[in-house]
Protein backbone atom coordinates (compact mmCIF):
# COMPACT_ATOMS: atom_id res chain seq x y z
CA UNK A 1 0.00 0.00 0.00
CA UNK A 2 1.42 3.41 -0.84
CA UNK A 3 1.75 6.34 1.54
CA UNK A 4 -1.38 8.12 0.34
CA UNK A 5 -3.56 5.03 0.76
CA UNK A 6 -2.23 4.33 4.24
CA UNK A 7 -2.70 7.95 5.26
CA UNK A 8 -6.16 8.03 3.77
CA UNK A 9 -7.15 4.99 5.85
CA UNK A 10 -5.72 6.55 9.01
CA UNK A 11 -7.59 9.83 8.52
CA UNK A 12 -10.81 8.06 7.58
CA UNK A 13 -10.73 5.88 10.72
CA UNK A 14 -9.60 8.51 13.16
CA UNK A 15 -11.76 11.41 12.03
CA UNK A 16 -14.68 9.47 10.59
CA UNK A 17 -14.59 10.97 7.10
CA UNK A 18 -15.25 9.16 3.82
CA UNK A 19 -12.05 7.95 2.13
CA UNK A 20 -13.35 9.33 -1.15
CA UNK A 21 -13.24 12.84 0.34
CA UNK A 22 -9.53 12.52 1.13
CA UNK A 23 -7.79 13.68 -2.03
CA UNK A 24 -4.21 14.95 -2.34
CA UNK A 25 -5.37 18.53 -2.80
CA UNK A 26 -7.86 18.38 0.10
CA UNK A 27 -6.84 20.58 3.00
CA UNK A 28 -6.76 19.10 6.49
CA UNK A 29 -8.96 21.98 7.58
CA UNK A 30 -11.60 20.98 5.03
CA UNK A 31 -11.59 17.51 6.59
CA UNK A 32 -12.43 19.09 9.94
CA UNK A 33 -8.97 18.80 11.50
CA UNK A 34 -7.99 21.69 13.77
CA UNK A 35 -4.47 22.26 15.13
CA UNK A 36 -4.95 19.77 17.97
CA UNK A 37 -6.26 17.11 15.59
CA UNK A 38 -3.20 17.63 13.38
CA UNK A 39 -0.90 17.03 16.37
CA UNK A 40 -2.86 13.88 17.12
CA UNK A 41 -2.55 12.72 13.51
CA UNK A 42 1.20 13.37 13.45
CA UNK A 43 1.58 11.29 16.60
CA UNK A 44 -0.01 8.33 14.80
CA UNK A 45 1.98 9.01 11.62
CA UNK A 46 5.21 8.81 13.63
CA UNK A 47 4.18 5.39 14.94
CA UNK A 48 2.91 3.94 11.67
CA UNK A 49 5.70 5.26 9.39
CA UNK A 50 8.46 4.93 12.02
CA UNK A 51 9.63 8.50 11.65
CA UNK A 52 10.22 11.46 13.93
CA UNK A 53 8.54 14.73 12.94
CA UNK A 54 10.18 17.77 14.55
CA UNK A 55 8.13 20.80 15.61
CA UNK A 56 9.38 23.04 12.78
CA UNK A 57 8.20 20.52 10.19
CA UNK A 58 4.57 20.71 11.26
CA UNK A 59 3.65 23.09 8.44
CA UNK A 60 1.23 21.06 6.44
CA UNK A 61 -1.90 22.28 4.76
CA UNK A 62 -3.05 19.60 2.32
CA UNK A 63 -3.08 15.81 2.29
CA UNK A 64 -0.37 15.96 -0.38
CA UNK A 65 1.81 18.02 2.01
CA UNK A 66 1.51 15.24 4.58
CA UNK A 67 2.40 12.58 2.02
CA UNK A 68 5.51 14.52 0.89
CA UNK A 69 6.56 15.11 4.48
CA UNK A 70 6.25 11.41 5.31
CA UNK A 71 8.15 10.30 2.20
CA UNK A 72 10.92 12.87 2.69
CA UNK A 73 11.40 11.98 6.36
CA UNK A 74 11.38 8.25 5.66
CA UNK A 75 14.12 8.86 3.09
CA UNK A 76 16.14 11.13 5.40
CA UNK A 77 15.71 8.87 8.42
CA UNK A 78 16.62 5.72 6.50
CA UNK A 79 13.19 4.07 6.61
CA UNK A 80 12.43 4.11 2.88
Amino acid at each position, binding site marked *: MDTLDTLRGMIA*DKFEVESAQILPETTLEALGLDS*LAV*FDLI*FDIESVFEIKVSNDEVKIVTVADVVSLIERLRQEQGKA
Partner: protein
Amino acid sequence: MHRVAVTGWGVVSPWGNDPLRFRESVFSGQSAIRPLSQRTDQPWPDRTAAWIDDFDPRAHFSVSQLSTLDRTSQFAMVSSRSALNMSGLDINQLNLEQCGVYVGTGMGSAGALETTYSSFYGEQNRRLKPLTVPMVMSNSAAAHIAIETGFLGGNVTFCSACASSGIAIGEASRKIRYGEAKVMLAGGAESLIYPGVLFAWEALRTLAETDQADPARSCKPFSKNRTGMVLGEGSAFFVLESWEHAEKRGANILAELIGFSSTSDSGHLTKPSIAGQARAMRAALTDAHLNSDQIGYINAHGTGTQANDSAEASAIQEVFGVDTATVPVSSSKAVHGHLLGAASAMELLITLMALQESVVPPTANLDEIDPECHLDHVMGHPKPIHALRYAMSNSFAFGGTSSVLIAKAAN
Protein backbone atom coordinates in the same frame (compact mmCIF):
# COMPACT_ATOMS: atom_id res chain seq x y z
CA MET B 1 -32.72 39.90 42.91
CA HIS B 2 -34.12 37.30 40.58
CA ARG B 3 -35.72 34.00 41.55
CA VAL B 4 -33.95 30.86 40.29
CA ALA B 5 -36.00 28.19 38.52
CA VAL B 6 -34.78 24.67 37.78
CA THR B 7 -36.12 23.81 34.33
CA GLY B 8 -34.14 20.73 33.37
CA TRP B 9 -32.00 17.98 34.78
CA GLY B 10 -29.89 15.15 33.47
CA VAL B 11 -28.09 12.26 35.07
CA VAL B 12 -25.49 9.60 34.29
CA SER B 13 -25.66 6.87 36.91
CA PRO B 14 -25.05 3.17 37.47
CA TRP B 15 -28.77 2.71 36.67
CA GLY B 16 -28.42 4.48 33.34
CA ASN B 17 -29.22 7.97 32.11
CA ASP B 18 -33.00 7.97 32.43
CA PRO B 19 -34.02 10.23 35.36
CA LEU B 20 -37.18 8.20 36.00
CA ARG B 21 -35.29 4.95 36.33
CA PHE B 22 -32.69 6.72 38.47
CA ARG B 23 -35.45 8.00 40.75
CA GLU B 24 -37.10 4.62 41.04
CA SER B 25 -33.80 2.91 41.90
CA VAL B 26 -32.73 5.42 44.55
CA PHE B 27 -36.14 5.75 46.19
CA SER B 28 -36.63 1.98 46.34
CA GLY B 29 -33.20 1.59 47.94
CA GLN B 30 -31.78 -0.50 45.11
CA SER B 31 -28.01 -0.51 45.59
CA ALA B 32 -25.51 0.02 42.77
CA ILE B 33 -22.65 -1.02 45.04
CA ARG B 34 -20.72 -4.17 44.13
CA PRO B 35 -17.49 -5.85 45.19
CA LEU B 36 -14.43 -4.82 43.15
CA SER B 37 -13.48 -8.50 43.12
CA GLN B 38 -15.98 -8.73 40.23
CA ARG B 39 -13.40 -6.85 38.17
CA THR B 40 -10.31 -8.80 37.24
CA ASP B 41 -8.84 -6.30 34.77
CA GLN B 42 -6.52 -4.62 37.31
CA PRO B 43 -5.36 -4.98 40.89
CA TRP B 44 -8.08 -3.61 43.18
CA PRO B 45 -8.33 -3.30 46.95
CA ASP B 46 -10.69 -5.80 48.54
CA ARG B 47 -13.50 -3.23 48.73
CA THR B 48 -16.73 -2.27 47.03
CA ALA B 49 -17.62 0.59 44.66
CA ALA B 50 -20.58 1.81 42.62
CA TRP B 51 -19.31 1.97 39.08
CA ILE B 52 -21.09 2.34 35.75
CA ASP B 53 -20.91 -0.67 33.45
CA ASP B 54 -22.92 0.14 30.39
CA PHE B 55 -21.84 3.66 29.43
CA ASP B 56 -20.85 3.50 25.77
CA PRO B 57 -18.82 6.59 24.80
CA ARG B 58 -19.25 5.85 21.08
CA ALA B 59 -23.01 6.20 21.45
CA HIS B 60 -22.45 9.85 22.33
CA PHE B 61 -19.15 10.99 20.79
CA SER B 62 -17.08 10.67 17.64
CA VAL B 63 -13.65 9.02 17.73
CA SER B 64 -11.92 12.38 17.35
CA GLN B 65 -14.04 13.97 20.12
CA LEU B 66 -13.01 11.13 22.40
CA SER B 67 -9.33 11.99 21.94
CA THR B 68 -9.86 14.94 24.29
CA LEU B 69 -12.67 13.61 26.48
CA ASP B 70 -11.83 11.85 29.70
CA ARG B 71 -14.62 9.72 31.22
CA THR B 72 -15.45 12.54 33.67
CA SER B 73 -15.97 14.97 30.78
CA GLN B 74 -17.98 12.36 28.90
CA PHE B 75 -20.33 11.96 31.87
CA ALA B 76 -20.63 15.74 32.23
CA MET B 77 -21.42 16.27 28.57
CA VAL B 78 -24.05 13.55 28.44
CA SER B 79 -25.88 14.69 31.57
CA SER B 80 -25.70 18.38 30.62
CA ARG B 81 -27.12 17.56 27.17
CA SER B 82 -30.00 15.71 28.85
CA ALA B 83 -30.66 18.65 31.16
CA LEU B 84 -30.68 21.10 28.28
CA ASN B 85 -32.93 18.82 26.29
CA MET B 86 -35.38 18.45 29.17
CA SER B 87 -35.53 22.23 29.65
CA GLY B 88 -36.82 22.67 26.10
CA LEU B 89 -34.54 25.68 25.64
CA ASP B 90 -33.71 26.56 22.04
CA ILE B 91 -30.08 27.67 22.03
CA ASN B 92 -30.71 29.72 18.88
CA GLN B 93 -33.19 31.85 20.79
CA LEU B 94 -30.84 32.63 23.68
CA ASN B 95 -28.63 35.63 24.31
CA LEU B 96 -25.53 33.48 24.75
CA GLU B 97 -23.70 36.20 26.71
CA GLN B 98 -26.29 35.69 29.44
CA CYS B 99 -25.70 31.92 29.62
CA GLY B 100 -22.90 30.13 31.46
CA VAL B 101 -21.49 26.76 32.49
CA TYR B 102 -20.43 25.99 36.07
CA VAL B 103 -19.06 22.54 36.83
CA GLY B 104 -17.88 20.84 40.01
CA THR B 105 -15.44 17.96 40.06
CA GLY B 106 -13.22 16.61 42.81
CA MET B 107 -10.47 14.71 41.03
CA GLY B 108 -11.12 16.00 37.51
CA SER B 109 -9.83 13.72 34.79
CA ALA B 110 -8.47 11.13 37.20
CA GLY B 111 -8.73 8.31 34.67
CA ALA B 112 -6.73 10.02 31.93
CA LEU B 113 -4.12 11.08 34.46
CA GLU B 114 -3.76 7.57 35.84
CA THR B 115 -3.51 6.07 32.35
CA THR B 116 -0.83 8.61 31.41
CA TYR B 117 1.25 8.05 34.55
CA SER B 118 0.88 4.33 34.20
CA SER B 119 2.23 4.56 30.67
CA PHE B 120 5.05 6.95 31.62
CA TYR B 121 6.28 5.38 34.84
CA GLY B 122 5.04 1.83 34.42
CA GLU B 123 5.80 1.14 30.78
CA GLN B 124 8.60 3.74 30.61
CA ASN B 125 6.80 5.22 27.60
CA ARG B 126 8.25 8.60 26.68
CA ARG B 127 5.84 9.27 23.80
CA LEU B 128 2.76 10.57 25.54
CA LYS B 129 -0.35 11.34 23.54
CA PRO B 130 -0.36 14.91 22.19
CA LEU B 131 -3.79 15.69 23.60
CA THR B 132 -2.95 14.56 27.12
CA VAL B 133 -2.87 18.08 28.58
CA PRO B 134 -6.24 19.31 27.25
CA MET B 135 -7.78 15.98 28.21
CA VAL B 136 -6.39 15.91 31.74
CA MET B 137 -6.93 19.56 32.69
CA SER B 138 -9.51 19.73 35.46
CA ASN B 139 -11.65 22.32 33.67
CA SER B 140 -11.95 20.16 30.58
CA ALA B 141 -15.60 19.20 31.16
CA ALA B 142 -16.75 22.81 31.54
CA ALA B 143 -14.78 23.83 28.48
CA HIS B 144 -16.30 21.12 26.33
CA ILE B 145 -19.84 21.98 27.45
CA ALA B 146 -19.23 25.68 26.77
CA ILE B 147 -17.89 24.91 23.28
CA GLU B 148 -20.81 22.66 22.46
CA THR B 149 -23.50 25.05 23.71
CA GLY B 150 -21.77 28.28 22.70
CA PHE B 151 -22.59 29.78 26.12
CA LEU B 152 -20.44 32.88 26.55
CA GLY B 153 -21.26 34.04 30.08
CA GLY B 154 -18.57 32.13 31.99
CA ASN B 155 -17.22 28.61 32.02
CA VAL B 156 -15.87 27.89 35.49
CA THR B 157 -14.80 24.75 37.33
CA PHE B 158 -15.11 24.46 41.08
CA CYS B 159 -12.78 22.00 42.78
CA SER B 160 -13.62 21.66 46.47
CA ALA B 161 -13.64 17.90 47.01
CA CYS B 162 -17.05 16.60 48.11
CA ALA B 163 -18.67 20.06 47.95
CA SER B 164 -17.49 20.92 44.41
CA SER B 165 -20.77 20.61 42.54
CA GLY B 166 -22.81 22.10 45.40
CA ILE B 167 -20.69 25.19 45.09
CA ALA B 168 -20.90 25.15 41.29
CA ILE B 169 -24.72 25.01 41.47
CA GLY B 170 -24.92 27.55 44.29
CA GLU B 171 -22.62 30.05 42.54
CA ALA B 172 -24.54 29.53 39.29
CA SER B 173 -27.77 30.31 41.12
CA ARG B 174 -26.19 33.48 42.52
CA LYS B 175 -25.20 34.55 39.03
CA ILE B 176 -28.86 34.36 38.06
CA ARG B 177 -30.05 35.95 41.29
CA TYR B 178 -27.77 38.95 40.78
CA GLY B 179 -28.99 39.36 37.21
CA GLU B 180 -25.67 38.47 35.56
CA ALA B 181 -27.10 35.46 33.74
CA LYS B 182 -30.47 34.23 32.52
CA VAL B 183 -29.53 30.58 32.01
CA MET B 184 -26.84 28.48 33.67
CA LEU B 185 -25.91 24.86 33.07
CA ALA B 186 -24.57 23.70 36.43
CA GLY B 187 -23.69 20.35 37.89
CA GLY B 188 -20.93 17.94 38.65
CA ALA B 189 -19.16 14.91 37.27
CA GLU B 190 -16.75 12.41 38.71
CA SER B 191 -15.06 9.26 37.51
CA LEU B 192 -12.45 7.95 39.89
CA ILE B 193 -12.87 4.20 40.06
CA TYR B 194 -9.27 3.49 39.10
CA PRO B 195 -6.84 1.26 41.00
CA GLY B 196 -4.37 4.02 41.95
CA VAL B 197 -7.17 6.24 43.24
CA LEU B 198 -8.84 3.38 45.12
CA PHE B 199 -5.63 2.28 46.81
CA ALA B 200 -5.01 5.90 47.87
CA TRP B 201 -8.47 6.10 49.45
CA GLU B 202 -7.90 2.71 51.05
CA ALA B 203 -4.66 4.01 52.57
CA LEU B 204 -6.62 6.84 54.20
CA ARG B 205 -8.70 4.17 56.02
CA THR B 206 -11.97 5.66 54.84
CA LEU B 207 -13.39 2.90 52.63
CA ALA B 208 -16.11 0.65 54.01
CA GLU B 209 -15.38 -2.98 54.74
CA THR B 210 -17.22 -5.27 52.38
CA ASP B 211 -20.42 -6.61 53.93
CA GLN B 212 -19.72 -10.31 53.51
CA ALA B 213 -23.39 -11.31 53.71
CA ASP B 214 -24.38 -8.78 51.05
CA PRO B 215 -21.69 -6.56 49.47
CA ALA B 216 -24.43 -4.27 48.08
CA ARG B 217 -25.12 -3.25 51.70
CA SER B 218 -21.55 -2.21 52.51
CA CYS B 219 -22.32 1.51 52.87
CA LYS B 220 -24.38 2.09 56.04
CA PRO B 221 -24.81 5.80 56.80
CA PHE B 222 -25.86 6.61 60.40
CA SER B 223 -25.83 2.92 61.25
CA LYS B 224 -24.23 1.60 64.43
CA ASN B 225 -22.18 -0.87 62.40
CA ARG B 226 -21.06 1.54 59.64
CA THR B 227 -17.44 1.08 58.59
CA GLY B 228 -16.82 3.79 56.01
CA MET B 229 -17.70 5.16 52.63
CA VAL B 230 -18.00 3.57 49.20
CA LEU B 231 -16.86 5.46 46.11
CA GLY B 232 -19.19 5.96 43.15
CA GLU B 233 -19.11 7.64 39.76
CA GLY B 234 -21.50 9.57 37.55
CA SER B 235 -22.87 13.01 36.90
CA ALA B 236 -25.90 15.22 37.37
CA PHE B 237 -26.61 18.56 35.74
CA PHE B 238 -29.30 21.22 35.96
CA VAL B 239 -30.59 24.01 33.82
CA LEU B 240 -31.03 26.99 36.13
CA GLU B 241 -32.98 29.86 34.75
CA SER B 242 -34.22 33.21 35.97
CA TRP B 243 -37.85 32.80 36.98
CA GLU B 244 -39.12 35.46 34.58
CA HIS B 245 -37.14 33.97 31.67
CA ALA B 246 -38.60 30.54 32.38
CA GLU B 247 -42.15 31.84 32.81
CA LYS B 248 -41.98 33.96 29.70
CA ARG B 249 -41.19 30.99 27.50
CA GLY B 250 -43.74 28.79 29.27
CA ALA B 251 -41.11 26.40 30.65
CA ASN B 252 -42.00 23.53 32.94
CA ILE B 253 -40.53 24.73 36.24
CA LEU B 254 -39.40 21.72 38.28
CA ALA B 255 -38.26 23.46 41.47
CA GLU B 256 -36.83 26.69 42.81
CA LEU B 257 -33.39 27.17 44.35
CA ILE B 258 -33.79 29.56 47.25
CA GLY B 259 -30.79 29.12 49.50
CA PHE B 260 -27.07 28.48 49.28
CA SER B 261 -24.13 28.68 51.60
CA SER B 262 -20.45 28.07 51.19
CA THR B 263 -18.44 28.22 54.38
CA SER B 264 -15.08 27.01 55.66
CA ASP B 265 -14.27 25.01 58.79
CA SER B 266 -10.69 26.30 58.74
CA GLY B 267 -9.76 23.70 61.32
CA HIS B 268 -8.61 20.32 60.06
CA LEU B 269 -7.85 18.87 56.66
CA THR B 270 -10.21 15.89 56.97
CA LYS B 271 -11.92 15.92 60.39
CA PRO B 272 -15.52 17.15 60.17
CA SER B 273 -16.42 20.11 62.35
CA ILE B 274 -19.82 20.18 64.07
CA ALA B 275 -19.60 23.95 64.39
CA GLY B 276 -18.60 24.30 60.73
CA GLN B 277 -21.43 22.13 59.46
CA ALA B 278 -23.95 23.91 61.68
CA ARG B 279 -22.66 27.27 60.45
CA ALA B 280 -23.16 26.18 56.85
CA MET B 281 -26.76 25.04 57.46
CA ARG B 282 -27.61 28.26 59.32
CA ALA B 283 -26.08 30.38 56.57
CA ALA B 284 -28.16 28.60 53.93
CA LEU B 285 -31.34 29.06 56.02
CA THR B 286 -30.56 32.77 56.37
CA ASP B 287 -29.96 33.02 52.64
CA ALA B 288 -33.31 31.32 51.98
CA HIS B 289 -35.11 33.52 54.58
CA LEU B 290 -36.37 30.37 56.30
CA ASN B 291 -36.53 29.17 59.88
CA SER B 292 -35.24 25.69 60.53
CA ASP B 293 -38.75 24.41 61.33
CA GLN B 294 -39.83 25.14 57.76
CA ILE B 295 -37.45 22.54 56.28
CA GLY B 296 -39.37 19.35 55.54
CA TYR B 297 -36.51 17.08 54.50
CA ILE B 298 -32.72 16.98 54.76
CA ASN B 299 -30.67 15.02 52.26
CA ALA B 300 -27.65 14.50 54.49
CA HIS B 301 -24.04 14.32 53.43
CA GLY B 302 -24.14 10.97 55.29
CA THR B 303 -21.01 9.28 53.95
CA GLY B 304 -21.04 6.25 56.22
CA THR B 305 -17.77 7.13 57.96
CA GLN B 306 -17.69 7.16 61.77
CA ALA B 307 -16.53 10.74 61.91
CA ASN B 308 -18.86 12.33 59.36
CA ASP B 309 -22.16 10.83 60.37
CA SER B 310 -21.94 11.54 64.10
CA ALA B 311 -20.66 15.08 63.45
CA GLU B 312 -23.41 15.76 60.93
CA ALA B 313 -26.10 14.39 63.27
CA SER B 314 -24.82 16.68 66.04
CA ALA B 315 -24.73 19.65 63.66
CA ILE B 316 -28.31 18.98 62.53
CA GLN B 317 -29.37 18.72 66.18
CA GLU B 318 -27.65 22.02 66.90
CA VAL B 319 -29.47 23.82 64.07
CA PHE B 320 -32.84 22.09 64.18
CA GLY B 321 -33.07 21.58 67.94
CA VAL B 322 -32.34 18.54 70.08
CA ASP B 323 -35.78 17.17 69.30
CA THR B 324 -35.08 16.65 65.63
CA ALA B 325 -37.91 14.16 65.28
CA THR B 326 -39.72 16.69 63.13
CA VAL B 327 -37.25 16.76 60.23
CA PRO B 328 -36.91 13.59 58.17
CA VAL B 329 -33.29 12.92 57.22
CA SER B 330 -31.76 10.40 54.82
CA SER B 331 -28.54 9.72 52.97
CA SER B 332 -28.77 8.25 49.50
CA LYS B 333 -25.04 7.46 49.45
CA ALA B 334 -25.97 4.01 50.77
CA VAL B 335 -27.08 3.12 47.23
CA HIS B 336 -25.07 5.32 44.81
CA GLY B 337 -21.91 5.67 46.87
CA HIS B 338 -19.89 8.84 47.29
CA LEU B 339 -19.39 10.67 44.01
CA LEU B 340 -17.11 13.31 45.54
CA GLY B 341 -17.27 16.28 43.17
CA ALA B 342 -20.55 15.07 41.67
CA ALA B 343 -22.11 14.09 45.01
CA SER B 344 -23.86 17.40 45.70
CA ALA B 345 -25.35 17.50 42.20
CA MET B 346 -26.66 13.94 42.32
CA GLU B 347 -28.04 14.46 45.82
CA LEU B 348 -29.67 17.77 44.87
CA LEU B 349 -31.36 15.90 42.04
CA ILE B 350 -32.71 13.39 44.56
CA THR B 351 -33.80 16.25 46.82
CA LEU B 352 -35.66 17.96 43.96
CA MET B 353 -37.29 14.66 42.99
CA ALA B 354 -38.44 14.32 46.60
CA LEU B 355 -39.95 17.82 46.49
CA GLN B 356 -41.66 17.06 43.21
CA GLU B 357 -43.54 14.06 44.56
CA SER B 358 -43.69 14.94 48.28
CA VAL B 359 -41.98 11.61 48.97
CA VAL B 360 -38.51 11.28 50.49
CA PRO B 361 -36.08 8.41 49.96
CA PRO B 362 -34.86 6.16 52.77
CA THR B 363 -31.33 5.59 54.01
CA ALA B 364 -30.77 2.03 52.84
CA ASN B 365 -28.99 -0.49 55.09
CA LEU B 366 -29.96 1.39 58.23
CA ASP B 367 -31.14 -1.39 60.52
CA GLU B 368 -29.75 -0.16 63.80
CA ILE B 369 -29.33 3.58 64.29
CA ASP B 370 -26.14 4.70 65.99
CA PRO B 371 -27.27 6.39 69.24
CA GLU B 372 -24.77 9.12 68.39
CA CYS B 373 -26.75 9.82 65.22
CA HIS B 374 -30.11 10.57 66.80
CA LEU B 375 -32.26 12.03 64.02
CA ASP B 376 -35.63 11.37 62.38
CA HIS B 377 -34.20 8.81 59.96
CA VAL B 378 -36.18 7.67 56.94
CA MET B 379 -35.72 3.92 57.05
CA GLY B 380 -36.73 0.99 54.93
CA HIS B 381 -39.15 2.61 52.50
CA PRO B 382 -39.72 5.96 50.85
CA LYS B 383 -41.80 8.20 53.09
CA PRO B 384 -44.63 10.43 51.87
CA ILE B 385 -44.51 13.89 53.47
CA HIS B 386 -47.67 15.93 53.41
CA ALA B 387 -47.17 19.08 51.32
CA LEU B 388 -43.38 18.99 51.33
CA ARG B 389 -42.29 22.53 50.41
CA TYR B 390 -38.69 23.10 51.44
CA ALA B 391 -35.74 20.69 51.46
CA MET B 392 -32.06 21.00 52.28
CA SER B 393 -29.10 19.15 50.76
CA ASN B 394 -25.81 19.04 52.68
CA SER B 395 -22.27 18.62 51.39
CA PHE B 396 -19.26 18.69 53.71
CA ALA B 397 -15.87 18.29 52.11
CA PHE B 398 -12.34 17.36 53.00
CA GLY B 399 -10.47 20.61 53.25
CA GLY B 400 -13.23 22.04 55.42
CA THR B 401 -15.41 23.35 52.58
CA SER B 402 -19.12 23.15 53.34
CA SER B 403 -21.93 23.75 50.94
CA VAL B 404 -25.64 23.65 51.67
CA LEU B 405 -28.40 24.11 49.11
CA ILE B 406 -32.07 24.75 49.89
CA ALA B 407 -34.80 24.18 47.33
CA LYS B 408 -38.52 24.89 47.21
CA ALA B 409 -41.18 22.83 45.49
CA ALA B 410 -42.33 24.41 42.24
CA ASN B 411 -46.05 24.35 42.98
